[in-house]
C-alpha cells in the first residue's frame, strides 16, 4: 500500500468518511431523513441522516477499495472524485430548494470540493502503469 498513492489516499479518506458518517448520527437524532435543514457536525458541517448514510457508503467504498488493490482504488478515487465535483457544481444551485436532500451548507461544499480535487487528482494521475491484476 505504501507504494501506491491511490491505495493510501483511498484508505485514509475512506476511514475519515466512515468516522464522519458515524459521528453524524450522534447529532442528527431528531432530524428527518431527507430534511433540507440538518444539524451541525463539529459545529460546522450540516448533515442529515441521508447525508450520514452517503458518508458511510462512500467511506466504505473507499476503504474497501484502498485495502483491496491498486486498480480498485484508482477507479473508486476517480469515480467518487467526479461525483463530488458534480455535487460541488449542482449543490450550489439546489442549496435553497427542496432538492437539497443532503442539507448541504458552505462548509460541506468546501469539504466536498477538497475531496473531489484530491481524489480526482490522485485517481487520474497516479498508478498509471498498473495492470488490472496488480496489488501493489
Amino acid at each position, binding site marked *: 500500500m505504501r507504494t501506491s498513492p491511490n491505495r493510501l489516499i483511498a484508505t485514509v479518506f475512506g476511514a475519515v468518511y466512515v468516522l464522519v458518517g458515524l459521528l453524524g448520527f450522534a447529532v442528527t437524532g431528531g432530524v428527518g431523513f431527507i430534511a433540507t435543514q440538518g444539524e451541525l457536525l463539529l459545529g460546522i458541517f*450540516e448533515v442529515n441522516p441521508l447525508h450520514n448514510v452517503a458518508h458511510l457508503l462512500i467511506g466504505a467504498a473507499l476503504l474497501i477499495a484502498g485495502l483491496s488493490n491498486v486498480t480498485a482504488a484508482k477507479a473508486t478515487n476517480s469515480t467518487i472524485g467526479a461525483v463530488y465535483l458534480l455535487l460541488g457544481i449542482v449543490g450550489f444551485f439546489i442549496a435553497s430548494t427542496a432538492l437539497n436532500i443532503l442539507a448541504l*451548507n458552505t462548509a460541506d*461544499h468546501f469539504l466536498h470540493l477538497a475531496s473531489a480535487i484530491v481524489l480526482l487528482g490522485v485517481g487520474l494521475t497516479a498508478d498509471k502503469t498498473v495492470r488490472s491484476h496488480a496489488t501493489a
Partner: protein
Amino acid sequence: MSPVTRIWMGFAALGAALIHLAVGVTAPFPLSVLLVGFGIAELGWGIATLARDRIIVPRIIVGAALIPVFIWGATAALGSGLGVTSAQTGLPLYPMAVASLLNIFLAATVAIAQRHASNKVPAPVGAALHGTGTPSGWRFLTGVVAGGFLLSALTTPALAATEIGSHALPHGSHGVTAVIMPQPVDHGSH
C-alpha cells in the same frame, strides 16, 4: 515539469471553471455566454491535463487563460467609468479576483514551462511539458492534498460570494449554530 505542478495546474483550471460557471449563470447575456463557455473549456482542459501526462495545447492556454481576466478588467474599467459597481456589472469582485488569480497562475506556469522547454535540447514543446514518470511517494501526496485544500479554501468562499452561491447557506446556518436564551424558571412563584 513535476507531476505536482501539473496537478496544481489541473486543480487551478477546475477552480476557475467552477467560479466562471457560477458567475456566468447569473451574468448579463453576452458575458454569461462567454463565462459559461470558458468554464466548460477550463473544466475539460483541467480534467484532460490531469488524465494525461502532459499539458494540453500549451501555446493556446497561455493566451486563452488570460481572456477571462481581460473581459473582467474591461468590464470593471468600463463600469467604473460609467459609475457602475462591480456587483451591478454582473461580475462580482471577489469571485472574479480569485478566478483571475487562478487563470494568471495557469498562464504564467505554462509560459515558464515553455521557456524551459525551448532552452533545452530541441524537442517538441509538448514533450518537455510531459510528466516525469509515474508520480508516487509522500512528497507527491502531500503536494496533491495541500493543493486540493488550498484550492478549496480559495474557491469555496469565492463561490459563496457569487449570486447563485449566496443561496447556498440554508436558513439558520449562517455561521451561528444557535443562541438559546435562558428561560425564567418558576413563573408560578410571582
